[in-house]
């Protein structure tokens, strides 16, 4: 009974964001437990969007929380919410993992042209994905928006790299990215 009570208290988010960050920075045990229980589902879902293999995704999730513990002092509250920071960290780590994977499977030349050809392949893979989230919404966008978000958000390429790969002026990539995220904001509800 007592255990259940304590557990549900943890789930109830007993911290304000500032309190939580302070506790995390002082490496408070309870704060990390709370952080994990509160955010694991959201972060795991994001990893699954990039790495559908549950076992690999779980390994990345573990690494993400380890890195949060190690890097929490780098988190700057003036630049954004804790979740935004964690999500960026998660996305970077998942992208790195997909690169490791693709590097093994595909080619020794890790340049973007490979990824563009991989996009189609992956698009097909991901249509059957069970984990509903941002990527599904992205795939509903028109193709020119979908491609720039796919390459930037899900594969981590810079705007210049995308321009080069898609043989588009940088300005066009920028415009498409902006329109794409506005569209996405409307759709992703």
């Amino acid at each position, binding site marked *: 009974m007592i255990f259940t009570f304590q557990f549900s208290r943890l789930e109830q988010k007993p911290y304000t964001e500032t309190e939580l960050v302070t506790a995390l920075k002082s490496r408070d045990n309870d704060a990390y437990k709370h952080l994990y229980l509160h955010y694991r589902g959201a972060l*795991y879902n994001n990893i699954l969007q990039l790495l559908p293999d549950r076992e690999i995704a779980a390994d990345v999730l573990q690494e993400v929380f380890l890195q949060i513990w190690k890097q929490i002092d780098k988190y700057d509250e003036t630049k954004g919410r804790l979740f935004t920071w964690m999500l960026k960290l998660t996305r970077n780590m998942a992208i790195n993992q997909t690169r490791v994977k693709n590097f093994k499977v595909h080619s020794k030349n890790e340049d973007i042209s490979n990824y563009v050809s991989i996009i189609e392949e992956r698009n097909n893979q991901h249509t059957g994905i069970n984990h509903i989230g941002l990527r599904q919404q992205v795939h509903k966008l028109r193709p020119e928006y979908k491609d720039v978000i796919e390459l930037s958000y899900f594969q981590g390429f810079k705007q210049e790299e995308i321009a080069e790969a898609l043989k588009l002026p940088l300005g066009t990539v920028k415009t498409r990215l902006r329109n794409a995220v506005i569209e996405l904001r409307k759709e992703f509800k």
Partner: protein
Amino acid sequence: MDIKEYISSGIIELYVMGLCSPEEEKELEALRPQYKELHEAILQYEKDMEEKMLRYATLPDAETDKQILQQLASLNTPVVQMRPVQSTGLKFNWMRSVAAAAVILLGISAYFNYTLYNKTKKQAALISNSTSSPLPAADYTVITNPAITPVALYGVGSHAICRCTMFWDKSTGKAYIMIHHLPRSSSSKDYQLWAEVDGKTVNVGIINDAIRGRFIEVTNVPNQSIAFKVTLEQSGGAAQPTLAETYLEGKI
């Protein structure tokens, strides 16, 4: 600049998603403090995003939960155990464990040195002899040290529920405080430790009460102290204790 147009240009979404170019990021961060509506629009999008992502959650299996929670709990365990390797084990593995332990210890030590440095720097201006930092490793050695004098600090008046234990090493003038129960101080307040010496109340230092479940090291504890108290003072500490705000007291 037309800030409304800028806000609705998609730049906020790109920024929050981490898709800006470095120049765009720099520009936005320069504009942010100047325009309240920009700042609020960023916060709003961040909240929206967080709320949506929390809604589209997929929980990992129970085994993963267990494993990660255990790992997170172990990160806070101060002692790095180096177990003797079985004679059948490879020497290479043993070397790796030692190397890993050394790296972990170095990391922990660097972190605490940094914390101590910052804390010391912040308080040096106000109270010259006060430092407080978490004790990084081997907490149990504090308790097992035969030179240690344990001092139980009990809650006073309406704070009767509060409890801390202090382990005082007279030979080094250091004390290690463990918080069992003490409300978290706000950002504008600090707990301050005082010692009673020759009928006078002397400042010992600020207690960084954000540290829970670990020892907080306090230095320069007067050797002739006969009692201690903890009061809640304005951030940075006070020259004289605010007795009405006494939380804890303990006698040798």
